[in-house]
């Protein structure tokens, strides 16, 4: 019996370590938000992030004054940092939705303690992503022209264009992610309301929690709504990066015009996103002592997902080169040669292989998988690699197309770089604010993981399908209202 327990523990490791009760879980997580004193490391981190975010402010002001000519993109490379960074940020967001929606549907318990800040990461990453195309329009104050509304100009958006699909996909994605995140927060906001001592914050949390009181009827509908949202977000998240990839693959350009782009982009997005989740959660669990909730098991699982999606991405690189050769089109084959060894950007491609292909080979070994430091390092390398991937796809395809007379080179200006760095600062500023003012781990879902939550031997996984309830009626009397 003891052996059996050991085996069981190896297969299904506990998701909450240490001796915890409902109260200790609640206090541990909500104290970060409710405590009056803010830890010193928060100020340091926030200060640095906020200063870097000023670069964004500076660039945007200069951009609005001067116009997008201050960026390095020019014919033939009309799309460069603006779209590279857009795709990079949108991709990062995807891991949040994957964790909150797809892993929920797949009944993965380990999502429970990482879903909250992964979803926050999604929102903030989408906010950063959205800035690039908006500012690239040159007149962001007219961005509402992208939406279909009756206007005196008597024109409409072109619904056959992938760019307008993108508008619909990204704005829907941002809205649904916000809804999903907020719904998950409601019961925890009620907890904060009931625990807060400060009148002002009590009022804010009370208003935001809509008067939640944990009634069984409310929970019933709540879980249904959450499950439905997960079911809706799953196709949504797959569609968003597919549509982003259609921005490229619907065009005729060699290097962009490829049918395998949607799955390739989605895998890359999840890959980059899990890298960012690791970058965020390793310091978080360390500085806020959340090792009981974000355990080693969580890190190992995330590294495995990262590895699996990394291999899909590497497979796509191989296929891309193979199609270029096997397709028999001289333009395609030239593009591959130009990208990998003949062109001026060949080193970007090899750096990309190093960052995305070689670095994850370390994850085969337990030593690297189970070390926070290595995982953190690999995650940063992968993030860089995914950025390089977008650079390679976009710039090396477009800088030498069909006519040698219209070839050109691209190099970013200072403003490209400050804008990109600025969004990174902006992203971390938002993350720091989130950690301070909202519970970074879903409190009520962690409660369901405790052994004490079992009822007559049934576990209370939040993920358990609520449909099962229907079949457990063993009574003949009609249900109450």
């Amino acid at each position, binding site marked *: 019996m003891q052996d059996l327990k050991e085996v069981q523990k190896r297969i299904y490791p506990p998701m909450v370590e240490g001796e915890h009760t409902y109260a200790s879980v609640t206090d541990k997580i909500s104290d970060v938000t409710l405590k009056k004193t803010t830890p010193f490391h928060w100020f340091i981190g926030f200060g640095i992030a906020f200063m870097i975010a000023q670069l964004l402010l500076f660039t945007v002001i200069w951009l609005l004054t001067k116009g997008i000519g201050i960026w390095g993109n020019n014919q033939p490379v009309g799309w460069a940092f603006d779209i590279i960074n857009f795709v990079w940020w949108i991709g990062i967001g995807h891991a949040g939705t994957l964790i909150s929606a797809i892993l929920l549907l797949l009944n993965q318990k380990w999502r429970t303690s990482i879903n909250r800040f992964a979803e926050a990461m999604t929102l903030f990453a989408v906010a950063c992503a959205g800035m690039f195309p908006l500012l690239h329009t040159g007149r962001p104050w007219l961005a509402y022209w992208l939406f279909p509304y009756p206007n005196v100009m008597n024109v409409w958006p072109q*619904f056959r264009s992938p760019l307008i699909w993108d508008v*619909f*996909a990204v704005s*829907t994605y941002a809205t649904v992610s916000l*809804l999903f995140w907020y719904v998950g927060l409601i019961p925890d906001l009620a907890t904060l309301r009931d625990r807060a001592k400060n009148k002002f914050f009590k009022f804010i949390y009370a208003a935001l929690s809509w008067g939640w009181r944990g009634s069984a009827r409310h929970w019933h509908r709540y879980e249904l709504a959450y499950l439905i949202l997960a079911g809706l977000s799953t196709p949504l998240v797959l569609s968003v990066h597919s549509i982003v990839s259609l921005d490229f693959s619907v065009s005729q350009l060699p290097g962009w015009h490829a049918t395998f782009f949607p799955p390739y982009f989605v895998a890359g997005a999840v890959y980059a996103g899990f890298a960012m989740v690791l970058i965020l959660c390793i310091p978080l669990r360390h500085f806020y002592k959340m090792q009981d909730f974000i355990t080693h098991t969580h890190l190992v699982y995330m590294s495995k997902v990262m590895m699996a999606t990394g291999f899909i991405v590497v497979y796509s690189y191989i296929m891309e080169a193979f199609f270029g050769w096997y397709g028999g089109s001289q333009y395609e084959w030239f593009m591959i040669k130009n990208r990998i060894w003949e062109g001026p950007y060949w080193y970007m491609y090899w750096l990309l292989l190093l960052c995305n292909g070689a670095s994850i080979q370390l994850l085969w070994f337990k030593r690297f998988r189970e070390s926070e430091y290595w995982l953190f390092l690999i995650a940063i390398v992968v993030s860089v690699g995914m950025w390089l991937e977008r650079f390679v796809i976009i710039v090396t395809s477009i800088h030498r197309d069909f006519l040698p007379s219209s070839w050109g080179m691209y190099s970013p200006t200072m403003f490209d770089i400050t804008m990109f760095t600025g969004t990174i600062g902006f992203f971390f500023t938002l993350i720091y604010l989130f950690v301070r003012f909202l519970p970074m781990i879903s409190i009520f879902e962690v409660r369901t993981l405790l052994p004490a*939550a079992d009822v007559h031997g049934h576990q209370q996984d939040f993920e358990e399908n609520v449909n*099962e309830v229907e079949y457990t009626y063993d009574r003949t009397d009609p249900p109450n209202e």
Partner: protein
Amino acid sequence: MEKNLYGLIAEFDTAEQLVDAAREARDAGYTKTDACSPFPIHEMDEALGIKRSILPYLCLAGGITGLLSGLALTYFVHVIDYPIIVGGRPHFSLPSFIPPMYELTILCASFTAVFGMLFLNGLPRPYHPLFNVPRFALATREKFFLVIESEDPKFDYDAARGFMETLKAQEVFDVEE
């Protein structure tokens, strides 16, 4: 007994006790009951006899509305109001209209799921009589509460209180309106 009594609540320490107590309350014939817990308990639905919500059907309707409005929008724009040939495709080029339709389906269904849930739950409700019981603040932390409302046809203060005291509750409280 005061006139403005909302009901009685009993406090429990574990989810299991709450489920058992809810079952007993239902067996005893109480129908205007509720249970409050810091996390969802799946056995509760059966123990209290909660009907399956109509929320999924509302979402389906929301999704269909989104789909049809996406179709109507793209059809109106590209066939009726401003027909123009782009990329050699017909005015009604359904395949390229699918992405907007698809996104609108998801958007409308999600809005229905969230706001439908809040609406059916009767939220926002900043005031509720249960909040008058100081111990009830623990319902969002670690304690479990069973509620019998005074509107219950079978409700009789002394009998209900006596019944609740047989449930091995920590304590039974009167809830004032």
